[in-house]
């Protein structure tokens, strides 16, 4: 018996997707692999192949509303198509196995499968044909283009084949990175509180502000403004924005004043380096960076980031700790 799935998302689905975006319980977010029906499919209806990550499954079924079709869900260990294809779990072997275990050929009279284009990294179409007899067509990159793809007789335009990395695509990735960065910052705040017991000039609001500015520049501003920041390396883009933020906040808080020169110099070395590192991490989420490129970027940037942070942190600490402690 084939289960029919609804093309409408419930409140629970929407809530679940919000949670996933913010990194809460994303691991246990799976759909049972196998064959599903959408609408009232017949033997001649198209077959779409997808991953068993709930968000992927939900986006797909929402976009299939009004169509009668089959949905073959692969076991990708509840990982989305793009990442699973990179790992090989959305791959030739799993597809061939799932075609057999779901007894797909009992339900359909044709031998065409429509796979998401981003699954092509893990699937070899000619090998699937050889091993299962099924022809693979790669559909559009975005599920929202599926209707148009079907209407055009299973043809995708160049635009539908191209991965965009729009402002919205970039912004939805921000919360998880930001929460991660904040988690790593909390111990640092603890250390600073401790250091304040002995500091000549205790760390205060201005220091926290520059630090927060650096994190914001690296995890929010750089992704948001990505294509508009000059240059191509992510670390460079992050460093530029980090420098602007740091200089801006230092200026506003009057830290460029004479007796704070050491602190200002240290801050200008340390904080932009932090933004730079955080921005470099965004290469992992981007949809256009090549491993060779990222490798080259890290080789150049990481030594600079590490040495600038070390010297910068030394200067900032020195500026705070050394000198006569003011007794109130």
């Amino acid at each position, binding site marked *: 018996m084939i289960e029919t799935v609804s093309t409408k998302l419930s409140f629970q689905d929407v809530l679940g997707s919000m949670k996933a975006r913010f990194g809460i319980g994303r691991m246990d977010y799976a759909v049972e692999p196998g064959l599903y029906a959408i609408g009232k499919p017949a033997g001649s209806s198209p077959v779409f192949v997808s991953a068993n990550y709930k968000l992927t499954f939900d986006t797909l079924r929402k976009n299939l509303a009004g169509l009668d079709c089959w949905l073959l869900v692969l076991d990708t260990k509840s990982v989305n198509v793009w990442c699973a294809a990179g790992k090989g779990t959305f791959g030739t072997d799993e597809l061939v196995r799932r075609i057999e275990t779901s007894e797909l050929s009992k339900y359909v009279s044709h031998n065409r499968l429509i796979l998401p284009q981003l699954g092509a990294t893990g699937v070899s179409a000619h090998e699937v044909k050889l091993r299962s007899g099924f022809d693979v067509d790669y559909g559009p990159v975005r599920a929202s283009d599926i209707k148009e793809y079907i209407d055009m007789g299973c043809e995708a335009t160049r635009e539908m084949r191209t991965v965009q990395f729009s402002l919205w695509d970039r912004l939805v990735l921000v919360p998880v990175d930001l929460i991660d960065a904040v988690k790593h910052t909390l111990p640092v705040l603890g250390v600073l509180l401790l250091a304040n017991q002995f500091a000549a000039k205790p760390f205060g609001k201005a220091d926290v502000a520059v630090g927060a500015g650096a994190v914001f520049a690296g995890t929010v501003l750089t992704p948001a403004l990505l294509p508009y920041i000059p240059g191509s390396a992510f670390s460079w883009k992050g460093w530029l924005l980090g420098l602007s933020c740091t200089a801006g906040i230092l200026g506003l808080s009057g830290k460029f004043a004479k007796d704070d020169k050491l602190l200002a110099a240290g801050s200008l070395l340390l904080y932009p380096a932090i933004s730079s590192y955080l921005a470099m991490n965004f290469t*992992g989420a981007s949809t256009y960076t090549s491993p060779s490129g990222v490798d080259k970027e890290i080789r150049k940037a990481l030594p600079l980031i590490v040495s600038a942070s070390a010297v910068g942190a030394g200067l900032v600490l020195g500026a705070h700790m050394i000198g006569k402690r003011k007794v109130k």
Partner: protein
Amino acid sequence: MKHKYLKNVATLSYSEGKCVGCGRCAEVCPHGVFYSNGKKACVLDKDSCMECGACAMNCPAGAIEVSAGTGCAIAIIAGWLTGKEPTCDCSSGECC
């Protein structure tokens, strides 16, 4: 606005001699790197290649080679530290 990453680094290589003009490479590439006129494919924009490996994986003639992998800084640094191939597994178990 089209995103541009570092130039002249992609490891993509294509040998026209082997190509049978099936057009798969143009179908699967998410960055429009290939164009096929039905007889032969050609490389339009090598610098946009993100080395995902989809074209090589789906070329029935073995005309394409690319050293595929993940373009993620954390994964690559972790790969250096552990001496293993970089993988897309972040600490959370799922990165994207």
